[in-house]
């Protein structure tokens, strides 16, 4: 089920109403939300349910075994191998078979079989496999206790707001709140939940989906000479914004739903396109994935403990695997590799004395330098997104090289004349900046000038949240809404 489908509204209404009724009875609450989450995941394709249930049972059993065994490293290895093996089977079989097939054909040998037509990757598998690995490693490291109750563990894996596209939670951020006596019995911060839900739905249904309508034809015909040229740049910028609005919109909705059921989860995005370097970008973009890769891959590989060269190798490996995690395609791997390379280059730049002088600049020079860094980082990230959006290297290259060809005859081809879209993006920026200012007044009481202003701003924010939610429905482009981009991962 998709958050933007009308039936999800009915589903949520029913589940939340039942939750309000039985929230004081812990077992009933856990049972209700677990069943609801399985319905959410299985609706439309019930064949997916056994897979997620097997994942839950195996990870729970490994967690329990890790406490009792004398060979925890072996048990952990088996558990991680199971998670990665199943993930790899579903996600990477078609890519490997296609690569093998193409290689055999190129060598003039009889071609090997391709993957079955209609091979489907169970949606959310990357997210719940990673959540499972994080749990087992944390139990192994004894930073969290193994969960004895299968139902509570299964709920921590399948809870519908974060099931399909995260955020990727540590056990301490969610599982511990499902332990006996800790299960929340009331919603947290209803106003914040309302604002998060409204913002999330607006980002997805209005901004991301309208951008998708405007730019999809360009990416379909990216190799046509009629759409190439420097005027293709706005499409590349807009895709960067589309993926941001799409994914951060999903995270906002997931966090808002979490608050409704009494859980507070970390944010996944912190104004990533205001990052002044690639390293900073990865501290602001898909934060829970970056954190996972750091804690469960980069640091176990040796992190920055093995010297300058070893650190760079670890960085490259981490980003390569991070790219491959996103999807079964060589272009995703290349996307990860380029990001890894940019991170290494950034580390090289930091070795130069001039970088320290510029980083320490203050006043107008400091602002200018910061602006340049933000602009450069945004452009690099936006260009590298081409490898993420387009599935073949030839298409990605055509898109990128096209951006550097100037043809004045094509200046009306781009999306520069889509006035409605630009106005919407600008208007959204202004309105959200205003709401952000007001919410800072509201959520940071020390900044409040008078109680009356606090009440007024609280009313304003409620009105803002509710109206924005209504506008998300009315300003959406209409027709069949595309699914969230990250649902494919």
């Amino acid at each position: 089920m998709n958050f933007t489908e009308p039936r999800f509204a009915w589903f949520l209404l029913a589940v939340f109403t039942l939750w309000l009724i039985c929230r004081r009875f812990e077992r009933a609450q856990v049972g209700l939300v677990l069943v609801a989450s399985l319905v959410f995941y299985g609706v439309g394709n019930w064949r997916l349910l056994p897979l997620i249930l097997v994942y839950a049972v195996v990870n729970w059993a490994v967690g329990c075994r890790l406490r009792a065994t004398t060979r925890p490293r072996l048990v952990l290895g088996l558990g991680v191998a199971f998670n990665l093996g199943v993930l790899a089977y579903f996600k990477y079989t078609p890519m490997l078979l296609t690569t093998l097939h193409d290689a055999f054909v190129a060598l003039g040998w009889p071609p090997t079989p391709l993957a079955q037509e209609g091979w489907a990757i169970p949606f959310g598998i990357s997210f719940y496999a990673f959540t499972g690995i994080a749990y087992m490693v944390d139990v192994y490291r004894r930073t969290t206790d193994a969960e004895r109750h299968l139902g509570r563990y299964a709920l921590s894996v399948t809870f519908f707001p974060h099931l399909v596209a995260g955020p990727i939670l540590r056990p301490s951020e969610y599982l511990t709140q499902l332990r006996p006596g800790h299960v929340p019995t009331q919603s947290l911060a209803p106003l914040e939940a309302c604002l998060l839900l409204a913002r999330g739905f607006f980002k997805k249904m209005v901004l991301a989906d309208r951008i998708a309508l405007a730019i999809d034809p360009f990416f379909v015909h990216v190799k046509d000479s009629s759409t190439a040229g420097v005027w293709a740049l706005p499409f590349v910028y807009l895709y960067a914004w589309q993926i941001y609005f799409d994914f951060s919109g999903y995270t906002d909705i997931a966090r808002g739903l979490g608050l409704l059921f009494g859980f507070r989860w970390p944010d996944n995005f912190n104004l990533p396109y205001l990052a002044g370097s690639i390293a900073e970008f990865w501290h602001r973009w898909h934060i829970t994935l970056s954190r996972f890769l750091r804690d469960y891959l980069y640091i176990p590989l040796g992190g920055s403990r093995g010297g300058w060269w070893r650190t760079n190798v670890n960085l490259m490996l981490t980003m390569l695997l991070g790219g491959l995690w996103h999807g079964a395609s060589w272009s995703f791997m290349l996307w990860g590799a380029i990001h890894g390379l940019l991170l290494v280059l950034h580390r090289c730049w930091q070795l130069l004395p001039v970088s320290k002088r510029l980083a320490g600049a203050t006043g107008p020079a400091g602002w200018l330098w910061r602006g340049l860094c933000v602009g450069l980082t945004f452009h690099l990230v936006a260009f590298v997104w081409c490898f993420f959006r387009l599935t073949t290297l030839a298409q990605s290259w055509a898109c990128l090289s096209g951006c550097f060809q100037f043809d004045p005859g094509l200046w009306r081809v781009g999306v520069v004349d889509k006035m409605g879209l630009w106005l919407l993006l600008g208007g959204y920026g202004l309105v959200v900046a205003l709401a952000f200012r007001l919410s800072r007044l509201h959520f940071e009481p020390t900044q409040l000038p008078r109680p009356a202003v606090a009440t007024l701003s609280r009313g304003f924010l409620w009105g803002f949240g509710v109206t924005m939610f209504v506008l998300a429905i009315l300003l959406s482009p209409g027709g069949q809404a595309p699914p969230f981009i990250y649902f494919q991962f």
Partner: protein
Amino acid sequence: MAEHSIRHRLKRALLLAGGGIAAAIMLAALGELFLRYFPPSDNQEYLGTASLETGPFIPSAKFGIAYRSWQAFADSNCDYLAEYLPLDQSDGRPTWAMFGSSFVQMQGMLADTTRARLPGVRVFNLRRNETLIVRLAQIETLLEHGLRPQRIVVALMPLDVWALAKQPLSTVTVSPGGALAYKPRLPPPPCDLFVQNSALARTAWFRTGRHIGDPDFRLSQIEQGLPPRLRTEMAHVFGELERLSKQFDVPVTILLIPGLPQITRGMSFAFQDDAGALLREIGLDVCDPRERFLACSEPQSLFLPDKHFSPRGNQILLDALLEHWNRAGTPVSQVGGGTQ
């Protein structure tokens, strides 16, 4: 003290409501402004004179719409029309013009099956799945501009007349740019004033789905037989088709295609019964191939997973059509080329 507390609470409530209303008004005003200038695409066909959509049509009493000109028709069907031009000339083979949904137009379906099986016949089809009234307007334009096929076949399924049931001819209109459009159904007064004057209210009304001609009409109603209003609508448009047939002396056969649930799950043929009787009453030739399909062993093999006919299903459909014409006294052997 109590009075002070009540006043304090009242003041608090007023401030809270005031803040909420201020935010709602501010955002609603911005949304209204945006939607006035940039209405969503799903609103366009209900915007009347404000619609920005363009197309090849003008209003017509016959089918609700007609093509504005031959050029407009040719431009909107440029993909496949060229191979049939000029219309009044042929390669010596008799022409069968086929109109219908994807069951006729899609690759490998009835038109392609006929083409492959009867090389002696020139099959005319535009390979586009249009709504029923557009198909009828296509026939009108083609006949007026010189197409003289030996036969015209119009395939009909419940889904084809569903559009006519949901949007009766009285709601069909044409935008200033020539696109097919519909007059929206308005809510009862005084809400209609909001819908007529506010872009936000209009979009909200449209998004409820209550704006279409008959929002409560369900496909299952057609499958149980023709409701009286739909019967009247069909009598009108197919009566016009019959007049065209007579005017240009081109026989028209209506092919009532059975659906998967009727063949495999024993669902009633009430639609075919009612529509067949009505169309024969009008004077059109009707081919109802249900017996052929029901007599088949392994009925599932007649369909593809997407519920269209499999090659075997299409063969049977064509066989039924040829047998129908044989029985009606216009055997297919007369068309030359024979069957393969």
